[in-house]
């Protein structure tokens, strides 16, 4: 992980596995911060991420178990590495640049695999990681390899990959990347989406690792 982040952003502190041996429920957000997100979309996204944190922090079990990471694009940038939600302090994201979805997915999968290795080394149980892609556009880089990694990961039960499209997102391409059906955000209902995500994560993290994921129905925020 460490080669991806600057010294300014390191998660300094001891949130060690000995003090908190709870099983971890990792969730990484791959967030589109390209130029087209400027204005209201990025504002709503920022508020949504804060909602997610606040919802999870207030749940005693989720606050010990859920770990969040954030990758933004473009360019691809590790905004926050995996940490329990109490230590997750989302910074305000700004919109600029292109939409390298392929590179963002590849980095996200790499980070998930590394995190699992850390859990194993520390004897910490873990839940199936969630990778959540949110975009309002189409890849500006090659995504063929990334799509292949997603398919392999889903087939091997290594993680669950969800794609959420906003407004003008290219759903044809999202469908070719995500094994699960991509969901279309209704308007800019980021807040509702992140409330749904936090409820789903609270539910998952309150069960034992390995239990089947029963997602809450994506009601309210998705166009079905």
């Amino acid at each position: 992980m460490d080669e991806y982040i600057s010294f300014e952003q390191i998660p300094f502190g001891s949130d060690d596995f000995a003090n908190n041996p709870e099983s971890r429920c990792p969730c990484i957000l791959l967030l589109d911060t390209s130029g087209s997100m400027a204005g209201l979309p990025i504002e709503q996204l920022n508020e949504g991420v804060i909602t997610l944190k606040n919802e999870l922090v207030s749940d005693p079990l989720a606050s010990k178990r859920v770990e969040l990471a954030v990758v933004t694009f473009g360019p691809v940038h590790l905004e926050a590495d995996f940490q329990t939600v109490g230590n997750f302090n989302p910074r305000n994201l700004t919109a600029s640049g292109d939409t390298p979805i392929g590179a963002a997915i590849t980095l996200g999968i790499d980070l998930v695999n590394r995190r699992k290795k850390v859990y194993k080394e520390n004897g910490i149980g873990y839940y199936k990681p969630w990778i959540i892609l949110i975009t309002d556009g189409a890849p500006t880089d090659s995504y063929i390899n990334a799509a292949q990694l997603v398919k392999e990961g889903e087939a091997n039960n290594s993680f669950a990959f969800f794609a959420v499209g906003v407004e003008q997102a290219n759903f044809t391409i999202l469908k070719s990347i995500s094994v699960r059906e991509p969901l279309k955000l209704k308007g800019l209902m980021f807040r509702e989406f992140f409330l749904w995500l936090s409820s789903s994560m609270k539910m998952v993290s309150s069960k034992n690792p390995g239990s089947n994921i029963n997602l809450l129905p994506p009601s309210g925020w998705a166009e079905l």
Partner: protein
Amino acid sequence: MTWKLIGKSVIGTSHVQSGKDCEDSNHFEILNNGQENEIAIGFVSDGAGSAKFAKQAAIRAVQEAVSISIQYIEDEVEIEEKHLVALVERIYDIFRIESAAINVPLNEFSCTLLGFITLPHKSCFLQIGDGAIVRNDGSGHFTYIWWPQNGEYQNTTSFIVDDANVRNLQVKIIHEKIDEIGMFTDGLQMLALDYDSECAHQPFFNDLFKWLRRAESAEHVSILNRKLDEYLSSTSINNRTDDDKTLLLATKYIL
């Protein structure tokens, strides 16, 4: 840059609630004694909650301790245990004179003192009261110099001003090259020590030293020093302790 030191004292939530100041203090210096051998000096102190001048005593104790240590180095004193005892006795005398001057009991200046002076071929440690000093034994394992001095009860300990002969003072010279030292006041004892197995809590120090080892410039060290302050003020710490807390970390390791 050889030695990298960071240290912060942060007010506890119980002191905030009762309107008190932070009564912990720390002070550290890095000296180059001319032979490219850097010397690190660090002291921490915890002023007694019941003492009227706890804050002033803690600040004064660490500043005097560092300046006396620097004087020893400048005078090329071969520091032995008796010099460490003399250092604390001088601070005792300062408190005695100051308390007499303003006509208050000496115990209004009650504070603990822990410190180290690392020389090229040996390291000197002293401690009076609770808190602890740990050192990397060279294999990546942290061992404490002394287990915290608590009395019968968790909230009783000894202070510099307890006794003119500083009988509760512990001093030790270790004739080894020591490259990594952590030091903390009692506010962090529950996090930094493992009471079940009576040893230093290894993950705590590993997590924090990991980044200090990686620091490559004065700028990195100052970023970490700021982050240490944020960390000691964070909810994850405040959920475990409501007391003032001081942490000082020193390393020569480079990753």
